[in-house]
C-alpha cells in the first residue's frame, strides 16, 4: 500500500536541494585521488588494518568523509566495506590504525559510546527487534533516558514525562517514514523493506551527526527504493552526514555527492559519481571480480 503510493510520488525528477548544492560545491575542488583530504572532514581514518588469519581484509591508508555530504562506499564483494564499517563503529577491533570522529580520537572507544557521540550505524542484515513492537523499537533509540536506570524503572513518575516526549518524537518519525500504521505491530511482522525503514528511523532517534548505512537497499523492492532514496537525501538536508555502503549503482549515482571505491581491502579510487564511473581503475576492479559485468549495471 505504502509502496504503491511512493511509486507514483517519486516519478518526477527531484531538483537538488540547497544543501546538496552546497555539499557538491565544497567537494568540487577536491582532487579525485584515493585518500585525498577534504575541506571539512567529520571522519578521518589513518592506516586502518584488519587481518583475518593472515589476510588483510581492510588496509586503508587514509580516508576522509566530508561533513554534510552523502558519501557512498562501493566496491566488489569481499572488498572489506562492511569490515571497514565494523572497525570504524567499534564493532570490530583493527589490528592497527587510528581514526577520529568530529575531531575526537575513536581508538578504543566502545561502540555504544560512539553511537552516543553521534555516529550511528545500521546493519546489512537488518536488526529489527522482532519481538518488540514498532513503537518500542523507536523509543529504544532515544538517548539519555532517565527510565533506563534500573532503580528509576520502579519510579514511573520520574520518567513518564520524558517517555511521552520520546513517544511523540517516535510517532512523528514513524509518520515521516510511513510506518505509523504499523505502530503497535511486532517489528517481526514488517516486510524486509519496512524493516530497513524502521532501522533507519530508529537510528535517527539517537540524534546522530553521522549516519552510516550498510547496504540500505539490499532486499528492498524497487518501489520502496525511491522512498528510501528520498529519506537518505532528507538526512543530509537536515544537516547530517551520510556514509553508506551500496551495490545498487543507480542509487549511488542518484544521491551521492562523493564516491569512495574499495577493492581487496584497499582504497582504490575517490571522486564524484561521474568521475568514478569513468575511472579505469574502478572498472578494472569490478571486471576482476565480476567477469565483464558493467559497473553501472544493477547487480
Amino acid at each position, binding site marked *: 500500500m505504502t509502496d504503491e503510493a511512493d511509486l507514483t510520488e517519486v516519478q518526477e525528477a527531484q531538483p537538488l536541494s540547497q544543501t546538496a548544492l552546497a555539499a557538491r560545491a565544497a567537494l568540487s575542488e577536491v582532487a579525485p585521488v584515493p585518500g585525498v583530504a577534504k575541506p571539512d572532514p567529520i571522519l578521518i581514518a589513518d592506516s586502518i588494518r584488519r587481518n583475518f588469519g593472515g589476510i588483510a581484509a581492510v588496509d586503508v591508508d587514509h580516508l576522509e568523509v566530508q561533513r554534510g555530504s552523502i558519501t557512498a562506499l562501493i566496491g566488489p564483494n569481499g572488498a572489506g566495506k562492511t569490515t571497514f564499517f565494523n572497525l570504524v*563503529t567499534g*564493532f570490530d577491533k583493527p589490528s592497527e590504525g587510528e581514526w577520529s570522529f568530529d575531531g575526537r580520537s575513536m581508538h578504543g572507544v*566502545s*561502540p*555504544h*559510546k560512539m*553511537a*552516543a557521540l553521534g555516529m*550511528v*550505524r*545500521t*546493519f546489512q542484515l537488518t*536488526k*529489527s*527487534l*522482532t*519481538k*518488540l513492537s514498532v513503537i*518500542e*523499537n523507536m*523509543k*529504544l*533509540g532515544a*538517548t539519555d*533516558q*532517565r*527510565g*533506563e*536506570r*534500573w532503580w*528509576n*524503572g*520502579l519510579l*514511573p513518575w520520574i*520518567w513518564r514525562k520524558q*517517555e511521552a516526549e520520546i513517544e511523540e518524537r517516535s510517532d512523528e518519525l514513524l509518520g515521516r517514514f510511513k510506518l505509523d500504521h504499523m505502530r503497535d505491530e*511486532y517489528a517481526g511482522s514488517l516486510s524486509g523493506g519496512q524493516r530497513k525503514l524502521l*532501522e533507519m528511523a*530508529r*537510528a535517527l*532517534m*539517537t540524534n546522530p551527526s553521522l549516519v552510516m548505512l550498510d547496504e540500505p537497499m539490499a532486499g528492498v523492492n524497487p518501489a520502496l527504493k525511491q522512498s528510501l532514496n528520498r529519506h537518505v537525501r532528507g538526512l543530509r538536508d537536515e544537516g547530517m552526514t551520510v556514509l553508506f555502503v551500496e551495490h545498487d549503482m543507480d542509487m549511488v549515482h542518484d544521491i551521492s555527492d562523493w564516491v569512495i571505491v574499495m577493492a581487496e581491502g584497499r582504497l582504490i579510487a575517490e571522486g564524484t559519481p561521474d568521475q568514478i564511473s569513468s575511472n579505469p581503475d574502478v572498472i578494472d576492479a569490478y571486471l576482476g571480480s565480476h567477469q565483464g559485468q558493467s559497473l553501472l549495471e544493477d547487480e
Partner: protein
Amino acid sequence: MDWSLILSNTFRQMVGTDAMYFAIAALGLNVQFGYTGLLNFGQAGFMAAGGYGLGMTAWYFSISLWWGIPIAIVYALILGLLMGIPTLRLRSDYLAIVTIAAAEIIRLVVRSVRFKEQFGGTDGIGEFAGPFREVGSNLGIEQGNKYGFWVFEYTGRQFWTLIVGWILVAIFGFVVYLLMRSPWGRVLKAIREDEDAVRSLGKNVYSYKMQSLLFGGVVGAFAGMMLALDRGNVQPDNYSRDLTFYILTALVLGGLAKVSGSIVGPMLYWGVYVFIEGVLRGMTSDGPLQIGGVTIIQSTQVGQVQLMMVGAGLIALMTFRPQGLFGNREEMAFDDR
C-alpha cells in the same frame, strides 16, 4: 492407592514452601534468561549465597540473623560480578559454562573439610532460624499449632515461612512487572533480541547485562534464604547443580518472559512432581512393581523416575512449546538464534 491423599498432597505442595522458593528463584532467573537472554545455569550458586549468608551469621560471624540479609546480598553481588565480568562481553555460552562451573565449585567449597569452620562441611549449618521464627510467634503464630483450611494445613512454623515467602513472591513479582514495563526493561528485552542493535543505539549493553545478572542473582539469594529458613539449616546438597535446571524447567513450564509464568510455573511443577511421586509410591508401596515377573520400578527408584520425567518435560517443552503451557506462540518472547 489412596487418591485423596495423593490429591491433597498435590494441592498442598502447589502452594507449599518448595513452590514458594522456586517461584522466587524463577522470578530472578526470568529476568536473566526470559527477559535478557542470559543463560544463567548457576542460580543454585546465588541461592547458596543467600542460604549461607543467613547461616553464617550465628555460626561464623556470631552476629544477629538479620545481618544475614545484607551479607547474603553482598555475597550474591560478588558472585554475580565474578561470573559476569569475564563472560558478558562474549557469546552467551560462556556465561552458561562459567555459571555452571561456579555453582559447582561453590558447592565443593562449602562442603569441604578445609572450610568446615566457615561453612560447616557436609553437615551444613543449623540453628540460626530462631529469631525469624520468633517474629512469627510474636505475631501469634504458634509453632506447634495447625493453620490453614481444607487440604491446606500447615504447622505454625511452615505457615509463617509460607506467609513471608509468598509475600516476597508478590513483592518481587510486582517489582519485576514494573521494571519490565519501564525503559530499563525495554533495553533488556531488546538485548535478548539483538544486542548489537542495542549497542548501535548507544546503550552500554555490558552494563545492562550485568545489572540483569546481579538483579536476578540477588532475587535468587532471597530464594536461598527462604529455603534455609524453611529447612532451619543450610546444607550444601540442597544447592546442587541440578537445582538450577529444575527451576528452569518450572520457569519454562509457566512461560518465559512473563511474571505470571515464573509464579504459576513452579506451582504447577510441584503439583505435577508430587502427584507423580504419590502415584509411583502408591504403585510400589507393596513391593516392587512387576510386569510379567520383570521388575519395573522399586520404591527406592521413585526419585530417579520423577527427575527423568522432569528432564523429559524440559526437552518436550523446549521442542514443542517453548512459550510454556499457556503462552501464545506468536508472543513467544524467546528468540531463536
